[in-house]
């Protein structure tokens, strides 16, 4: 089904993760191809977030390995690895004592970019995520939830990483703002073609944004399918999801424009 000729950007090889007696992830194998949006779908505690954190080494696997761009992510410097991967989380985690500009430009600054290049990049990113230029001088507490998450995305994109890890980025937003941001995410992704791993428990969001959906349950990968096939899947768990979310899902499904 999936072309296996191109080497995957992220690859989980037989990964297990165990913490204080609980098997969070077991026998996990998954490949994420360049430019695709792979959605990890599953209920709370199914191991979605853990899988994400294994990629940028916020966690280390108990066994198995994760390869990023063909190299085990254990090799090399963890700081370099993390700076080459954008990371967006549900709580956003903006630095409350920094302006939006400093929040977005933190990594480029640390990397020693010259000042005018940093400023230009911040303005470019604000435009990319649909924020007014004067947002740069504001503080996180002065922004709405949607604006904050836009800044979070801009910050993740700052150093132009090839890979984006997104952990329920739109989970805490109201439905209208979520819809707006999902729409903009699709437009953004059409332009930028990042390799995205996106965690959600919302099937509708998964269908809309994902080029493929990886369904997880109790630390195991159940199935990986493109959105439309997911809807018609005979897998009992996938079918249960589809039933739980009710009808009219077909219209939501990403038909793979990219």
């Amino acid at each position, binding site marked *: 089904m999936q072309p296996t000729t191109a080497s995957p950007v992220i690859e989980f090889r037989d990964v297990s993760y165990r913490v204080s007696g609980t098997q969070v992830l077991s026998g996990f194998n998954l490949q994420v191809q360049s430019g695709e949006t792979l959605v990890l779908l599953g209920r709370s505690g199914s191991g979605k977030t853990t899988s994400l954190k294994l990629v*940028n080494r*916020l966690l280390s696997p108990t066994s198995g390995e994760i390869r990023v761009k063909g190299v085990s992510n254990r090799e090399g410097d963890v*700081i*370099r*690895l*993390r*700076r*080459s991967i954008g*990371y967006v*989380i549900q*709580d*956003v*985690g*903006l*630095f*409350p*004592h*920094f302006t939006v500009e400093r929040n977005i430009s*933190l*990594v480029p600054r*640390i990397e020693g970019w010259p000042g005018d290049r940093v400023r230009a990049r911040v303005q470019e990113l604000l435009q990319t995520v649909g924020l007014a230029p004067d947002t740069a001088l504001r*503080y996180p507490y002065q922004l709405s939830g949607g604006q904050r998450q836009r800044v*979070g995305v801009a*910050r*993740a994109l700052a150093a132009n990483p090839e890979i984006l*890890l997104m952990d329920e980025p739109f989970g805490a937003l109201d439905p209208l703002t979520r819809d707006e941001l999902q729409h903009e995410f699709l437009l953004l992704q059409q332009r930028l073609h990042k390799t995205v791993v996106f965690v959600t428990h919302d099937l509708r969001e998964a269908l809309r944004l994902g080029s493929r959906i990886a369904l997880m349950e109790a630390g195991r990968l159940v199935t990986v399918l493109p959105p439309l096939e997911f809807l018609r899947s005979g897998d009992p768990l996938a079918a249960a999801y589809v039933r739980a979310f009710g009808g009219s899902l077909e219209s939501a499904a990403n038909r793979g424009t990219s």
Partner: protein
Amino acid sequence: MNVFRFILQNHDQVLELTLEHLRLVGFSTLFAMLVGIPLGIVIAHRPGFSKPVLACANIIQTIPSLALFGFLLAVPWLGERADRLAILALTLYALLPIIRSTYTGIRGVDPAVVEAGRGMGLTESQLLFQVELPLAVSVILSGVRVAVVISVGLATIAAAIGAGGLGELIFRGLAMVDDRVILAGAIPAAILALVADFSVGRLERCLLPR
């Protein structure tokens, strides 16, 4: 008022003792910060150490000050000079509020912010100096404030071992049964405590983000 006339008449001496007092409090607070803040940072990151360290600081706090001064008097190098000894004792007392507030301040930083920072590829020291410390600074300084005010009060007792400071007037007044002399030590000490509290408060406002 008799007291103020007395202070005015002896202003040279009162001023000198106030400066001595300030020196005791200043050095001890400085040393307590130099030891307490790093220690607080360490135990905030390694929760396993937090209990024993805080317990030790707590125990020190429960030793009566006069007894602590007495114990330290027997230590060779320290016992030679009373002010050294007083500064050490005051440092020990100032440790608890400073360690505890540093610990609380750093632990209180929003975990999402720390995780985002780490995920973005900040090194541990960048995380500490650019994120954790700036966000914890007001809590840390509130501990320093408590420490300073406690020290100003405790330093009066240092006069009992001959370390000088405003306590000298208080003890002299007690011996002479003269309220004026007691108050000539106590009033400047109270003012000193208020001024110190206010100054650290101002410092806090300067250092506070936003």
